[in-house]
């Protein structure tokens, strides 16, 4: 009896201690944040506005707003902070534009079957239009065909749906908006190469899910830069399925086989942060460049502290807004451009302050 009482007391003390330390952490964070607010906010807002302008130009003439149309949105998974962010942006934009949106997702990054099933269920409802981002080029094709049959407009945002397959199945996409994935990989690789300098060195790429649009595009873009730069040696390209844990393990193994590696490009922030953690844990973070894509909130904070060297950003708010506008155009029977592309920004620790209020 005495022994368990002792254990319990120690347990309570530890909890207490953690709480106290936690409080101290919070208070310093708050005061620092308050100081920075005013001037930086303006710079970020200006950058977002510039990003939005490029998108809106492609969508002229703009559709009528505040008509209350119902739009269904299917993202990949809400277990990934990128899509969670995008969901918020969609909901924000929907309020601004006066439409009703409902955002659904598959349970995991790889569950292609469930994503299709969710799409089919959404088609049975009364949406006028759908904005869909497939896990893979082919898994949503049957759903697109079904939507066409019901007269629901289909806009593809982000990772691409296989247009040929859709055509073969007797369907069509009504609109497409994306970022240039290759460009993302290319610009990230350019930064890494520039930072490594003329001495050159070894680099590696950690991909997402093989075959997925964003993964393939970013890998291709980065690979082109790495292979065409003298002095740079691309030692490994490995998939980590957008998964934090897998990326951590791959980065650790990379270090083992190439202890002198200078830069790692990861196809998204989730994996980049995991790689940074892995290098940190091995005591080998310093002097190496780790770059991600998406500029999620977590990445933003990490670039601020130096944990991450940089990420490729585009304004999610502007992107989501443009997506909805594009969908509205299709619903209202207007002509649309072949593909609407979002401009990119390279955010690094050098210019992070200008992006601290990016959204």
């Amino acid at each position: 009896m005495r022994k368990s009482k002792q254990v319990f007391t120690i347990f309570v003390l530890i909890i207490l201690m953690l709480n106290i330390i936690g409080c101290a952490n919070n208070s310093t964070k708050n005061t620092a944040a308050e100081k920075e607010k005013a001037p930086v906010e303006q710079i970020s807002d200006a950058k977002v506005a510039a990003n939005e302008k490029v998108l809106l130009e492609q969508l002229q003439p703009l559709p009528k707003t505040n008509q209350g149309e119902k739009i269904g949105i299917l993202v990949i998974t809400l277990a990934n902070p990128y899509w969670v962010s995008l969901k918020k942006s969609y909901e924000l934009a929907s309020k601004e534009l006066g439409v009703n949106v409902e955002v659904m997702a598959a349970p995991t990054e790889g569950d292609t079957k469930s994503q299709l099933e969710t799409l089919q269920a959404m088609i049975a409802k009364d949406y006028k239009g759908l904005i869909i981002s497939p896990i893979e080029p082919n898994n949503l094709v049957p759903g697109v065909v079904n939507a066409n049959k019901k007269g629901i407009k289909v806009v593809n945002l982000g990772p691409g749906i296989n247009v040929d397959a859709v055509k073969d199945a007797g369907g069509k996409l009504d609109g497409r908006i994306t970022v240039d994935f290759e460009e993302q990989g290319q610009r990230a690789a350019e930064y890494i190469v520039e930072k490594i300098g003329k001495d050159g060195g070894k680099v590696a790429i950690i991909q997402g899910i093989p075959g997925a649009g964003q993964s393939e595009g970013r890998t291709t873009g980065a690979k082109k830069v790495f292979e065409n730069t003298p002095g740079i040696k691309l030692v490994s390209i490995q998939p980590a399925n957008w998964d934090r844990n897998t990326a951590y393990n791959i980065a650790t193994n990379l270090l083992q086989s190439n202890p002198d590696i200078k830069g790692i490009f990861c196809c998204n922030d989730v994996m980049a942060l995991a790689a940074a953690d892995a290098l940190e844990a091995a005591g080998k973070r310093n002097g190496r460049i780790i770059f991600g894509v998406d500029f999620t909130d977590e990445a933003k904070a990490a670039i601020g502290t130096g944990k991450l060297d940089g990420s490729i950003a585009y304004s999610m708010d502007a992107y989501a807004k443009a997506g909805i506008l594009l969908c509205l155009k299709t619903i209202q029977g207007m002509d649309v451009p072949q593909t609407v592309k979002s401009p990119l920004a390279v955010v690094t620790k050098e210019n992070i302050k200008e992006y601290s209020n990016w959204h």
Partner: protein
Amino acid sequence: MQQVKRLFVTGNQNFSQILLGLVLLITVIVLSLASPFFLTWDNWRNILDQSALQVIIAIGMTFVICTGGIDLSVGSISALSGVCMAVAMHAGVSVELAILLGITAGALVGMSNGWLISQLNLNPFIVTLGTMSVVRGAALIITTGIPIYGFPKAFTWWGNGHIGPLNPPMLIAVFIALLGALVLNKTKLGYYTLALGGNEEALRRSGVAHKVYKLMVYTICGITAALGGLVVTARLNTAEPLAGWMFELDAIAAVVLGGTDMKGGRGSITGTIMACLLLGMLRNGLTILNIPSYYQQLAIGIIILVAIIVSELRLRNAPGHQKNS
């Protein structure tokens, strides 16, 4: 009331199915009140379509669980069979032959599971856990991790085709369901499947080749998993090495929910089918009601736990449920 209680605790099959049927009915009523889209034909087509896949795999699993065993490798088998079909078709093999190859692959894996479990008397959980990894690894190696896509229309018809208002996956499911019910209830294989779960030693001492029958049961499970692979691959027009993730858990959930005893000896195909429908309706209903997928995970997990608890309470005093082994 005493009568009802007695029916409840002795694991009377008919009673438990009536109970499940009631739950099904209540769910339909609740969901149709909650959303006007639930009862539309379009939506029901989706539910039946999606449940079809689960039914196919769960029926094979029903047989395995009736013997008191389990098969954790069905998801991997689905993936491997899809990959085999894909590789064959891309190598120029005809669609029919490719499908046959894929199903054979599934049967072979099932047979090896069955052999290890019946001949060497190894624990089914461990054996199929191992097979699950081996087969998944094989699928990844064959495809080098990259999904194979683009198949002839004759193949994708199996996932997306139309036969009147129905489609091939539904028809496969109906066929497998009828076949499964026939075999389990009316044939020697069915009787012996239940006996394997109830008292394998009794079967052995009665001079029956019990090991052979056990092998057959696991082979059946492999075949239904391969058929599941056919449906998924045809529907998505892609053979993914990572397909079939969690299929085994869905199948086991449906079997347990349907009233089959995990200790073996007592099972029902009808129950499995009703459970698949129930789970399909719930997934669909939650999507229609715009509830995010993590709540779906939670909801379905809770239902499964409740089902297991109810099942145990029901079967506690049922004959043959408590065993030494």
